[in-house]
């Protein structure tokens, strides 16, 4: 039996379950770097010219494909390999994710040195993207099994790491590029190599300390519910059955629209605050605003998901979607009032709920479909993220350009988009309110659903 086999990772009776979250965090803090990839965008346009772009240097639109490919392959690999992840367990999955993500960086380093963009597409975009998807879902079902009493808090902790990884990634990238910078090179290739090795080691550390609970294990003092109550089931649904249920697609829409709305603000945060409050907000202040949004995005992942353990998942999504819709409608008002502080306060709450939407969804899936294949089901649901990743920025950017062409300025550039986002959240709210317990014909012991 190999070291990476699931059976080798079954914890003994004296294992402390709080030793598993660091394994999940080691992986999520690493792959969260993807949110900070934009730090490399400008230096990558100066590989030949070093101080400024020269003929033959890569253009920004061609470089934007690296991030898009990575996010696309995140969703694709999470959806395709979910069942494999459930079968082989967290250690082998985390190790594979480390090989893909670390390896993707190292391959990309060669792409920079040989100035071949397709190698970076392949390295960071395709292979690294698969590492992102595998790494993202690798700890989810194990966390839910270690913390059946607090599944929201447990998954919130790991997914918070994904938000925190952006802070580490952006600061580490800047430090490394500063260190490796030379008169003939901006130091991107060397930074990719160093980051590939660092993230590989960090993720392998996570894989080595990962343990799964024995089948009959439960926390001391915890009595599992004997019967299903409300939306929380004691049964299990396989991934292939789950995505044939209306509940899966209702949650798909909820996640997609919640992410679309949040990502629209996140992506345009800096120009938005400067254009809505002209003369009041400098570029440096806008940078501080983006940092504040990232902090609330990260904190929201833990706080809201933990709160959902007490309030129930359906209720907390009602809060995200209803309060979110109201706050989106308030954004134009903050602009008309000229109150930047009010605008910042509204945006940080919205971004905290954007993070909360991400981190609460695994626990919601666990409630509805049981723990057996929750990681795989979560993987399939992440395709909603891939769609939202395109939809959010496209909506904000194109509507803004259209309005600008018609002579709009300031608040007018964003107000219709904000009302549109509020509308999307209301649709999400209706979907969430429509979620009912899964029909028992989908349960595992009655594997084949009736038509």
């Amino acid at each position, binding site marked *: 039996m190999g070291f990476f086999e699931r059976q080798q990772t079954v914890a003994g009776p004296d294992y402390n379950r709080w030793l598993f979250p660091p*394994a999940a965090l080691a992986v999520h*803090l690493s792959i969260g770097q993807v949110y900070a990839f934009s730090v490399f965008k400008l230096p990558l346009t100066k590989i030949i010219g070093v101080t400024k772009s020269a003929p033959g240097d890569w253009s920004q639109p061609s470089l934007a494909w690296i991030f898009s490919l990575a996010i696309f392959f995140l969703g694709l690999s999470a959806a395709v390999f979910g069942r494999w992840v459930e079968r082989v367990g967290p250690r082998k999955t985390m190790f594979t994710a480390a090989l893909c993500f670390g390896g993707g960086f190292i391959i990309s380093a060669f792409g920079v040195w040989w100035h071949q963009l397709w190698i970076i597409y392949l390295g960071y975009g395709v292979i690294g993207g698969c590492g992102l998807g595998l790494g993202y879902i690798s700890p989810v079902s194990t966390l839910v099994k270690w913390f059946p009493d607090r599944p929201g808090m447990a998954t919130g902790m790991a997914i918070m*790491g994904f938000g*925190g990884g952006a802070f*580490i990634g952006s*600061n580490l990238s800047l430090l490394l590029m500063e260190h490796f910078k030379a008169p003939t090179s901006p130091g991107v290739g060397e930074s990719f190599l160093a980051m590939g090795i660092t993230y590989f080691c960090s993720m392998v550390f996570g894989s080595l300390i990962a343990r799964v609970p024995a089948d009959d294990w439960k926390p001391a003092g915890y009595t599992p519910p004997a019967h299903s109550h409300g939306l929380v089931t004691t049964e299990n649904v396989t991934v292939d059955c789950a995505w044939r249920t209306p509940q899966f697609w209702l949650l798909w829409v909820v996640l997609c629209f919640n992410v679309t709305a949040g990502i629209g603000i996140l992506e345009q945060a800096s120009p938005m605050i400067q254009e809505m409050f002209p003369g009041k907000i400098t570029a440096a202040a806008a*940078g*501080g605003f983006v940092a*504040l949004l990232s902090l609330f995005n990260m904190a929201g992942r833990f706080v809201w998901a933990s709160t959902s353990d007490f309030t129930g998942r359906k209720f907390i999504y009602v809060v995200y979607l209803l309060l979110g819709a109201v706050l989106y409608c308030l954004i134009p008002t903050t602009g008309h009032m000229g109150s930047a502080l009010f605008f*910042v306060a509204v945006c940080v709450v919205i971004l905290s709920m954007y993070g909360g939407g991400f981190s609460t969804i695994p626990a919601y899936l666990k409630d509805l479909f049981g723990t057996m294949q929750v990681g795989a089901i979560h993987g399939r649901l992440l395709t909603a993220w891939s769609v939202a990743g395109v939809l959010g920025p496209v909506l904000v950017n194109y509507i803004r350009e259209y309005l600008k062409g018609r002579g709009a300025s300031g608040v007018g550039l964003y107000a219709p988009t904000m009302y549109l986002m509020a509308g999307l959240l209301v649709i999400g709210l209706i979907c969430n309110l429509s979620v009912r317990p899964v029909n028992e014909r989908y349960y595992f012991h009655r594997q084949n659903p009736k038509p």
Partner: protein
Amino acid sequence: MATPIQCAGNWCKFVIYWLIVGIPLAWGIWTTLMKLPALFK
């Protein structure tokens, strides 16, 4: 029932594992917090 040595080992692991992930996270948050004063100037 875990022996005292096993208990001590578990606690050592607990502290080391959380420090390994906690220190980089704290550094990342701290450096980000340092950007905030610009917003409130």
